[in-house]
């Protein structure tokens, strides 16, 4: 036991003291924070106002309101002159709304010179035109009051709520949560599993393994290495969580905070606009996004985080332990990293399968696919993490954990048999048949 501890200590310290570990640990949260912060700034940068020239022959669409990204500039001439006079530097495009003789005036052409206007611009124009045209029709043909029209417009929101816990959240938030947790586990198993494999190959090729197994059992060396690297993984995740949270906190306190906090107020004003009949502007498309992002953020706050974090660490730890033993067995069977490819496939397939199945599982988180793949040990670490935010019956959860522990013990037992033979076998290309023989020694 004491010797395993000595091995664990070496495996842990030799990795934690490495420059690459320190760099990764610091860069990780920076990247994560960047992922959260950069999109916010990018959307802000994008808000540069674009000018759209409007040549409206119908005379209906004279009141399309501008917002901070799009400004309408009405011109009154004929099409030839307008096209001839179009200045690509000043205006992004020329919107030409012809007046058809027979048809409804609902078609328009957007002329551009060098840059085609993006989707945001066209959908914004469409929304505006539709709004104006519909209102006009309702008012003129059916004589409905403008105020009544606006009052009739509603927005439907659907939130799901757990009857027992009272958690409310958006299905989309739950999906993001599940996929994110599942992906982290997937990523962690590969990353630390690979470290185990490389460690075994290093010991084998540097021929130190024979010196070590003359003082400890191969199984002790295997277990010490796997546990040591597991601790490295836990350390790295803990540091990432702490550093990411503190980075986000620092960011909130500094400049960005004002913007983020003040946004809800401007939002209310804009939302108010919709209800003001004199103003023809409906809520811009942008704000629908803002709205859902905020309810998403709110929704994230409502999960049972202690359960999620507990499950994450449990399924990370045992999922890693299970796969690490297999990675170690592969490492022991080859002489260099290039030869690992042929044996990697059986390990990679269940991991990738679990990820491919994410889509059907999210669509039916309580269905048979979700159930079976979340209790089978090879896929359960990932699939269970995807399911947890949707809520999992306690007995399934416990079954999955119990089977994962059993799976870990079985895999380690099998892997140790291959490992024990493999580490002392040099200069031999190993086949699956050979591995099978080693299992039976």
């Amino acid at each position, binding site marked *: 036991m004491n010797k395993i501890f*000595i091995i664990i200590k070496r495996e842990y310290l030799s990795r934690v003291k490495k420059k690459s570990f320190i760099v990764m640990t610091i860069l990780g949260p920076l990247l994560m924070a960047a992922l959260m912060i950069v999109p916010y700034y990018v959307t802000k940068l994008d808000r540069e106002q674009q000018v759209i020239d409007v040549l409206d022959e119908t005379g209906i669409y004279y009141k399309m309101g501008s917002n901070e990204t799009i400004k309408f500039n009405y011109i009154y001439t004929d099409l030839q002159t307008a096209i001839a006079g179009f200045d690509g530097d000043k205006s992004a495009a020329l919107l030409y709304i012809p007046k058809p003789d027979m048809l409804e005036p609902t078609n328009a052409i957007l002329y551009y010179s060098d840059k085609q206007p993006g989707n945001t611009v066209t959908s914004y124009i469409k929304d505006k035109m539709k709004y104006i045209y519909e209102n006009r029709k309702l008012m003129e043909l059916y004589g409905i009051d403008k105020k009544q029209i606006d009052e009739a417009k509603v927005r439907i929101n659907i939130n799901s709520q757990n009857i027992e816990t009272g958690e409310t959240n958006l299905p989309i938030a739950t999906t993001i949560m599940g996929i994110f947790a599942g992906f982290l586990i997937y990523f962690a198993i590969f990353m630390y599993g690979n470290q185990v494999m490389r460690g075994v190959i290093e010991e084998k090729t540097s*021929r130190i393994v*024979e*010196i070590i197994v003359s*003082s400890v059992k191969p199984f002790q060396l295997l277990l010490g290495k796997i546990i040591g690297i597991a601790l490295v993984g836990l350390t790295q995740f803990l540091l990432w969580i702490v550093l990411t949270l503190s980075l986000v906190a620092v960011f909130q306190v500094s400049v960005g905070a004002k913007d983020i906090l003040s946004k809800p107020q401007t939002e209310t004003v804009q939302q108010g606009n919709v209800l003001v009949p004199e103003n023809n502007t409906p809520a811009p498309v942008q704000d629908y996004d803002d709205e859902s992002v905020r309810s998403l953020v709110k929704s994230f706050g409502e999960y049972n985080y202690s359960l999620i974090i507990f499950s994450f660490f449990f399924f990370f730890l045992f999922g890693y332990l299970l796969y690490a033993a297999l990675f170690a067995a592969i490492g022991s069977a080859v002489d260099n990293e290039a030869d690992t490819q042929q044996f990697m496939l059986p390990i990679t397939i269940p991991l990738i399968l679990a990820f491919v199945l994410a889509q059907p599982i999210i669509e039916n988180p309580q269905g048979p696919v979700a159930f079976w793949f979340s209790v089978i040990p090879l896929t359960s670490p990932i699939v269970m993490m995807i399911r947890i935010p949707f809520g999992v019956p306690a007995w399934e959860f416990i079954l999955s954990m119990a089977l994962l522990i059993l799976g870990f013990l079985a895999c380690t037992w099998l892997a140790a048999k291959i490992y024990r033979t493999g580490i002392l076998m040099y200069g031999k290309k190993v086949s699956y048949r050979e591995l099978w*023989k080693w299992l039976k020694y």
Partner: protein
Amino acid sequence: MNVLETRNITKRFANHVALNGVSISVPEQSIFGLLGPNGAGKTTLIRIINMITGPDEGEVFLKGEKLEKNHIVNIGYLPEERGLYKKMKVGEQAIYLAQLRGLTYSDAIRKLRYWFEKFELMSWWNRKVEELSKGMQQKIQFIVTVLHEPKLLIFDEPFSGFDPINASLIKDEILRLRDNGATVVFSTHNMASVEELCDDIALINKSNKILEGKVNEIKYSYRSFSYQVEIAGTGASLKERLNKDFEVYDEVLQDGLLKAKIKILNNKTTNDMLSALMPHGTIHALHEIVPTMNDIFIAKVNADINLNYSSSGLTE
């Protein structure tokens, strides 16, 4: 009493037999050489003694007790395929390996300091292993093997990769370890080192032990009763002048001194030869031509091959 005994060890691999009923006995406080050509099965035998692999048949006894896992602490083993963690610092690594062999941290430091100073490695303590030359790495591996003062030391090819100076350093240490009470088993191709070091040897060829015993006795039993003689004043060749009991060959006459090899036949003794020579001149020197271990090794292995060849011929 024998410190180490193997009895009828047989080990089979998928398509060949690595050891076929090999028994060796290693007396206490001696140096035992395990000889044999490449692929004879020496390393497999050593791995079985260290319980790295198990035999298919046969048993290993350590001081009369059947070998158990807890005996391994009393064995210091230097493998042939040996290495170190390249990225780790020399001192840290030596402490780690010493701890794995059961030493406490403070004991490890104390003993390592003694050995590092002895081998002039102290200035390398905080360097990474990859900065060291191969010879230096070998010294560190040697130190780590002997550090916990085991009663039985097993070295697989200890001299491979050493320059002559360091090889003799290691030889001296092996002799000193024996004098301090340890028993040493080592495998080698280096026959000169066998002559210098070994008290006993076993010769393994093609999975079988074909020779075992004390080096002196083996050499004695393989002697050819030939002598190198230097004699002055004979004037000319001795070949025709001695009787049939003595066969003279390789004669060289130089500045009046005749150097010749004489083989004694028909159970005559050295004294008989001397009396036969004395009338012909003044004897300056006389010494027995003893077969070297190298000669015995080659002769024995070749004889073994011929034997196998002829026996397989017979079965046809």
